[in-house]
């Protein structure tokens, strides 16, 4: 029972990643693409936690911790590049 609910949740997360890919292609400016990249990163953190449940190894959570630590550096460096103050 719980497994079926988690599989539905994984399908919804994949749909969310695909929808933000649409925004990446139909963007008006560079900022739109960066926002889509940010949403994709956050959704894939949740997807990694679900994959660790499906594989039965809780040690896969460490990959999500690395993402949570390092994913915001890219967005910050792009913001400084856009502000011309790097």
């Amino acid at each position: 029972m719980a497994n079926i609910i988690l599989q539905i949740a994984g399908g919804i997360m994949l749909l969310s990643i695909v929808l933000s890919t649409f925004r990446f292609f139909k963007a008006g400016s560079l900022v739109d693409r960066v926002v889509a990249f940010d949403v994709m990163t956050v959704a894939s953190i949740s997807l990694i936690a679900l994959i660790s449940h499906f594989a039965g190894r809780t040690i896969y959570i460490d990959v999500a911790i690395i993402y949570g630590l390092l994913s915001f550096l890219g967005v910050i460096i792009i913001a400084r590049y856009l502000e011309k103050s790097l």
Partner: protein
Amino acid sequence: MEIIKIIGALITLLGSVFLLLGSIGLIRMPDVFTRIQTGTKASTLGTLLSLLGIGIIYFDIAGKIFLLIVFILITNPVSSHMLARAAHYIGVKKADVTVVDELEDFENEKLNNKTKISE
């Protein structure tokens, strides 16, 4: 034990629904700033809820999950705030229905004060 697992799975499902709402808002919102707002708020809440559900199911890794929740809660709003400031600075076009822009008012006021002092 089974009822706890079902509760955790339902919380994860709620979080994934919030992630889906965030990306639907990313497609339907009219300009850049509203897209930044919906993309940050909804997706941060969705990630927090889904990680919380996984932490309820596997209770022995709850420490790692708590650490991850704190990291995301700190870093994600900071990065999107810097992105919004950069978008305001390079002059991205706002939507027609925008009424209040407090950063622009603040900078105009600062400029007026500086010219008044120099006179």
